[in-house]
């Protein structure tokens, strides 16, 4: 049995990964899942969290937010809304975004519902990014 599978990762910023991987760990809307070679066909939506790609014994970590994951016989496709490798994350920017979002949520009384949802989403994204970047 093959001990690797073909993995493709593409976002709106382009193709991020195309090659063989041994293991893929991502956070879905239902919690973390790990894909190993020979997995049955599988489709799920992604949540917000850390993704780990195991290539040649190395672990590559990334912040992976939204989108979907499909596993078929031929390949595994990861199509997130945003996907950033840990080393590419701008920690300062993430922290700034977090502070701004927290500030907005504190003043929730004079914000519209839409603004509150947007701020909450921004806060979650910033938290994911900074936790992934800090662990490096």
């Amino acid at each position, binding site marked *: 049995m093959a001990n690797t599978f073909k993995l493709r990762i593409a976002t*709106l910023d382009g193709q991020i990964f195309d090659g063989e991987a041994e293991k893929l760990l991502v956070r879905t809307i239902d919690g973390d899942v790990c894909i190993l070679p020979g997995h049955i066909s599988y489709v799920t939506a992604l949540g917000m969290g850390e993704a780990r790609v195991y290539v040649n014994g190395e672990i590559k970590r990334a912040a992976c937010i*939204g*989108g979907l994951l499909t596993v*078929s016989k031929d390949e595994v496709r990861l199509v997130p809304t945003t996907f950033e490798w840990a080393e590419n994350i701008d920690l300062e920017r993430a922290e700034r975004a977090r502070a701004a979002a927290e500030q907005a949520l504190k003043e929730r009384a004079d914000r519209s519902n839409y603004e509150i949802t947007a701020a909450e989403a921004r806060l979650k994204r910033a938290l994911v990014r900074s936790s992934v970047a800090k662990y490096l």
Partner: protein
Amino acid sequence: MAGVSMKDIKLRIRSMESTKHITKAMEMVAASKLRRAEESAKRTRPYFQLMYDTAGDIAAQDSEFSSPYILPREVKRKLYVIIAGDRGLAGGYNHNVLKLFEEDRGDDPVTVLPIGKKALETMAAHNENIWSDSYPLAAELSISDSFTMAKGICSAFLKGEFDEVSLVYTSFESMLTQTPKLIKLLPLDRDIGKSRKKDSASVTIYEPDGETVFNRIIPEYLGGVVFGALCESEASEQAARRNAMDSATKNAEEMIEDLSLKYNRARQGAITQEITEIVAGAGA
């Protein structure tokens, strides 16, 4: 008499030259914008393709659940998302994409969501039903804008405001060819996936379940497709403008050449006439 026409020609040459300067400058601006737009169009393509294929695969396999996004309905109200440019002088770019819309819409009343100033202006002039005019500038639309738009479209579709959603945009094939295209966004076309080969025995697990996955994925899918189409359209617009301005510059050059010839002939004529007069005067 020859003098007057010489002056006229000179004036026309000068005005031609300033036109040429403008078209040349516009061509160069479009060429530099094109490079960036082409890059971003190429960047979004793998995502676009993967999303499209995957959604098609799921739609074709779907047997145990029935998401409202897939079920074909009786089409009474259509929504068209139309992506055109913000400016004119881009050859047939705006015209072609709007013509495709006109051909497809038929005679029934439809609702439109114009993106880009030219699309908005034309739709307003034709008294079309405009669903939202909050996207007047195509060039300024960001990824998050297109996701917000997609969410809006999805919720309107689920509420039954529309029974069919199509997208009209221009696909960037190469520097010289840009083709206007129309794709059906909702309900999802089951035939996309069916035409692709796959083993029929495969059973796919959806987690937590098909409907949840689908309801999560579709707004993302739409947002991705809209943004991808936007990048393609932007690249097409710049390419179309570059080509149009390139031929305008060439035409201006041709006219200047032609006028210069006429001017030189007129000058020669005037000199000949003067000499004849002098000679005639000396002979008398």
